[in-house]
């Protein structure tokens, strides 16, 4: 294979990857959310501020979804952000040698019978 052909192949692949990346970003933002099963009673030992930061840093008074799902720049990382928030906290408890909240299977937290469709808004 000659060098111009290799260069053309690399450019085509890069363009294809760029298009796929942009499609992926849009698909992540538009994907419906799966509801979680969350009991405040189980989490009463945790400071409210740990999750509801918006009540304290003046970024809003609504549910998490209204920012983290409706704003595209936050919606891109919503899964990672919320998994880190919940799962890492459970992992810290488990690593300390105590029984923790769900760590492994998805249905430990998620209710698959309910999905929440949140329409994204323009930034």
């Amino acid at each position, binding site marked *: 294979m000659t060098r111009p052909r290799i260069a053309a192949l690399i450019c085509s692949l890069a363009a294809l990857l760029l298009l796929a990346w942009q499609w*992926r970003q849009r698909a992540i933002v538009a994907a419906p959310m799966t509801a979680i099963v969350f009991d405040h*009673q189980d989490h009463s030992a945790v400071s409210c501020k740990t999750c509801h930061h918006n009540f304290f840093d003046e970024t809003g008074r609504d549910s998490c979804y209204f920012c983290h799902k409706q704003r595209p720049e936050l919606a891109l990382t919503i899964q990672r952000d919320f998994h*880190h928030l919940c799962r890492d906290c459970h992992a810290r*408890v488990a*690593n300390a040698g105590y029984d923790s909240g769900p760590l*492994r299977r998805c*249905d430990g937290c998620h209710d698959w019978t309910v999905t929440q469709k949140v329409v994204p808004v323009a930034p």
Partner: protein
Amino acid sequence: MARPVSPPGNLPANRVLMHSTDIDAAALRRRRAALGAAVFAYLLAPLLGLRLCGTAAVDPWWDAAIGTGLAAMGALALLPILSARWWAAQTRDADRLRVVQVLHRQLSYLLVALLLAHVLGLLLLEPRVLDYLLPTAPGYLLAGLAALLLVVALIASSQGRVRRHWPHPSWRRWHAGMSAAAVALTGWHLWGSAYWVATPTALLVAGWLLGVPTLLSLLWHHRPPARLAADAPHPHRLRRAVGTRLVCALCMLVVVAVALFAWRPAPEQPRAPHPYPCPGGRCL
């Protein structure tokens, strides 16, 4: 006493090839046993290292599926080391090279089997994991999928190399590049998905186990190990059998190690204070 002879034309002049027909069968067996033990130890080390540094097993079947992924990580880390290329630089012993070649090939099949068991096991236990194989999945999960596809492509390209008359130097460059990419993607996958053993020590152990063989093989690429003495010849069937027996034993040990990983609780350690003590008894 070993008798030095002139090296072949393509070897540096300071490398001396030795005929060592006085090496007895017991020494050869010891060497093969040492090679087999090193393979076993390194393949199982991620499981044992992460179990000792991570949390206790809480969901046996899920942990067994994760354990197959960790064993696959050990196999992937070993494959660059078990390359006949490095060993050819070390010895002219065709028997040993054949054993290494058979081990490399069969270990790659074992690697694919472990990776498929990892993916299919998690899918069977939790069908929603399918979302993690779609393009909208987080990057670290797509990295794992890409690593699996790369490993399959590596095996397919290696098997079809002679049939398609792929020149060896070109094939070797692609093989090495794709292997390095597969190791890097596996590292990313592990870093992102190992939240449940996400203690710094555990991640350090995993990084060490995955990185050291890769770095060592890269080092050997530039500084091949010194040539050693050749061993006595052995029948063709014996050297194939040695490689096959090693891999069969390896399979059994992997099953035992994964079972231990999934069902054995972590060793008792002094407990740290609960991060969120709750007197009501309903803790996180």
